[in-house]
């Protein structure tokens, strides 16, 4: 039975804990989407197809040694920057922002690529630096972050720019840049906040004002937040039950299958469901941190630590905005929201984690 061994060998690289988390999230995603789409089999099958593609990609990435991924990092970063620049010039305008690049039916957001390319490139950069604590390597790191950050912020897509910037800062933190830089950065952001306010677009100011007081425009900008909080809150301890979420199924809640999928989940499955969901996410994130801790390879541990923390950041931002503790920014709930691009990014990221875990290097 040689073929079976050959076929199954790639699966040996998969991490059981991470895979368990992924499968649980997949089941939750399919259940929530099935209910939220008025029991549309089509929606469930489409999402299932994305999971399948995602898992295949994950297996491939997991079987790729980290050194090869590392070797690609500079090229990926360069391609990402070039595509972002092209997007700014010729990209498709949707809702007033140029974020999409495409030929014919194929469109994608270069910023999505950057979500992985920047951490990879920084991990590549810092893993070859002799002295990370030297100020020059810190400044270089900031420049590497600033280029994609500014290009994406110019689109304008401040939300994504901030996420990518945050991932870069995490990387520098883990890489070991001196603490004073981070203290300085926090002070700078706090001080420049009021100044930056003037540079924000109207809709961006609106989102922040709405976050501070959703009731100021209950049928307009505040509608999402209010309806989402009603959905979560009305779920209660046990939830309303599968298919019984009125907020979502009666379309009081917009974007219930994408960015606000958590609200529908919390409405139907209650606090119990939310605890299970958060626990599953924590399982993945903490497993990722353990992989980073265990890795003997500087590139591996940097990328594993950053990706885990970034993964958590997405979860926190998404749940934060749906429960009303953060302003509304377009961030999907990892592996649950309906949609392909983000799912693929997360799967690749998890694949990198598994690759780091499956290919220990002790050559230092």
């Amino acid at each position, binding site marked *: 039975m040689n073929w079976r061994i050959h076929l199954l060998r790639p699966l040996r690289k998969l991490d059981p804990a991470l895979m368990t988390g992924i499968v649980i999230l997949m089941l939750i995603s399919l259940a929530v989407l099935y209910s939220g789409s008025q029991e549309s089999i089509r929606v469930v099958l489409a999402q299932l197809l994305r999971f399948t593609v995602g898992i295949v990609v994950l297996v491939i990435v997991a079987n790729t040694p980290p050194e090869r991924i590392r070797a690609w990092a500079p090229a990926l970063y360069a391609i990402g920057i070039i595509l972002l620049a092209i997007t700014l010039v010729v990209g498709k305008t949707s809702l007033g922002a140029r974020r999409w690049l495409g030929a014919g039916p194929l469109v994608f957001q270069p910023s999505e690529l950057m979500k992985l390319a920047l951490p990879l490139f920084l991990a590549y950069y810092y893993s070859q630096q002799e002295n990370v604590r030297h100020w020059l390597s810190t400044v270089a790191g900031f420049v590497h972050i600033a280029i994609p950050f500014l290009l994406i912020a110019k689109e304008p897509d401040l939300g994504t720019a901030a996420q990518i910037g945050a991932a870069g800062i995490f990387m520098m933190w883990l890489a070991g840049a001196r603490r004073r830089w981070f203290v300085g950065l926090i002070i700078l952001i706090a001080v420049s906040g009021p100044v930056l306010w003037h540079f924000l677009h109207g809709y961006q100011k609106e989102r922040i004002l709405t976050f501070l007081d959703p009731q100021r425009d209950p049928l307009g900008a505040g509608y999402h937040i209010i309806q989402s909080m009603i959905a979560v809150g009305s779920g209660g301890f046990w939830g309303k039950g599968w298919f019984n979420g009125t907020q979502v199924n009666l379309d009081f809640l917009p974007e219930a299958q994408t960015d606000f999928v958590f609200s529908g989940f919390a409405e139907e499955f209650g606090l119990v469901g939310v605890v299970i969901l958060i626990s599953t996410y924590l399982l993945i994130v903490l497993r990722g941190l353990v992989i980073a801790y265990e890795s003997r390879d500087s590139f591996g*541990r940097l990328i594993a630590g950053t990706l885990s923390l970034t993964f958590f950041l997405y979860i926190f931002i998404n749940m934060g905005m749906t429960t009303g503790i953060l302003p509304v920014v377009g961030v999907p709930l990892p592996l649950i929201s309906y949609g392909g691009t983000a799912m693929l990014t997360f799967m690749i990221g998890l694949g990198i984690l598994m690759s780091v875990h499956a290919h220990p290097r002790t050559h230092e």
Partner: protein
Amino acid sequence: MNALLPAQEHRQFTRRLLAVAGLITLLTAILATQVYRLQVLDHDHYATQSAHNTIALLPIAPLRGRILDRHGQILADDRTGFALAITPNKAIHLRETIHRLQQILRINAEDQKRFSRDLSHAHPYQPVFLRRDLRPDELAAFAVQRHQFPGVEIRTQIKRYYPYGSLFAHVLGYVGRLTPAEIREDQMADYAGLDSIGKSGLEAQYEALLKGQPGNQEVEVDARGRTVHSRLHLLARRGTTLHTTLDLAVQQAAGRAMAGRQGAVVALDPQNGDVLAAYSAPAFDPNAFVDSLSIAVWSKLRDDPGTPMTNRFLRGSYPPGSTIKPFVALSALHDKVITADQRLVGGTYYQIPGTKHKYYDWKPGGHGAENLREAIRDSNDVYFYQIAMRLGVTQIGNGLAHFGFGQRSGVDLPGESAGVVPSPDWLRQRYGQTWYQGQTVMMGIGQGYLLSTPLQLARATASIANGGRLVTPHLEQSSDSVTRPLDFSPATVAVIQNAMRDAVTTGTGKLLADDIHTVAGKTGTAQIHHAQRNDSGLVLHNTIQLWQDHALFIAYAPADHPRIAVAVVVEHGGHGGRTAGPVARAVIDAYLDTMTAPEVSP
């Protein structure tokens, strides 16, 4: 700054990783606290709000009030039609559904555009119209395949309908699509479920009355968005019926007589100001405006050189020509610049003493020496040149103001024009020019800057017909008739009345002499000073007709006890008596014939 040793580096990494874990713990705690607050502590509050969400109040649109003529004939009504509606959250896939519907029904781009617009305002469980005015064969075609279209249904659609089409276009106006800008925030509730509003004419004037009060029903929807239970909460109240003073037969006579012409007809009851007919030609079909106007129809109306959208009886400003003479004459008698019997020399022309310019009479050779009654009968220009000079511009203006010239009549229609009674001050302010005496002379025969609307002319005519009372024209039947007695002695008015009777029996309006009804009237011809020119100064529509004068006729009948006063303007109609006279006659006959004829059972 020294590089760390690998072991130190790893220790530092571990410390920083622990800090990260700490951050994650902190943020998770924040998140958990918030979820706990929402789902446990404030659960009751949100559960109530959620339950409130599932019961929606859906508005029920009221029927719009009818508009009736004075005999109860329906001039505007709400008609039920059939429309194809889609309930967004019941349809599987909107775009696909519409695409498949297009295979069996005609759904054009305009329908789709309106659908998407309406969709964005609608609740997901609220049906939105996709195609209106389905024909019976389309209904049948859909009925056969309806099981293939979940969420799509045939619904009744209420639509304003004007059975007489263009006949009452300008007086009734029309309803059109309600745009958010047209109503104030605090009126929103009053328009719940309504998608049209009176845009012009009586429909706009009596919008508040005609609109009705929307009702609503409580709709409870289940987890699938299906209506499980709906309960009538408040019945919609139909708008009030508007009883107008209009007379269908008179309006029809006016419409027929004006067919193919440009101009306006107004008929009033001189005793109380009832508007019996008000017609502006050319007209348009208001039915085309009801469900938003198609671009093709609109551009055709806009580009029509006859400007069918212009309400000529209300807003058309015409030089009254010789129809002004009875009013100038009455002012002259009243101000005692002349007596009824005093004869003034006639002749071919008139010259202001000490000047050379000759003001000719319309009749070659002119008239002999005539008194006032004869001068009105023959429309003696030279006589009125002299009268005008005796009165002076200010006194003519004051006199005409008594009859309502230069002021809005106060009719219950929006957008009325005031016309112009010129004065030296007015000329200076308006055009920066100095008044010269020749302009006073021309005012005596209703030329120059003097401008009147057909409605003003009819109103002024009514005030002579009724013996010297100025009525306020009105279209709503129950509104109190407002009349203001003018300061003329009955004998003075009688002179003018007799003169206008003479004009029809033996004078310039002889075409109406053989009418079975005793008509009194006055012809008028308004000279066209300005041909229509385009931007580069070329004369547009260079036809003989457009160079012709406007024909006017004012009349009332019966002469001894007037029941109807009429003003007619036929643009480019040439001589007043020949073209405008028959129109006035048709209108008068239509009214007086129905009054004498026995009541026709409905």
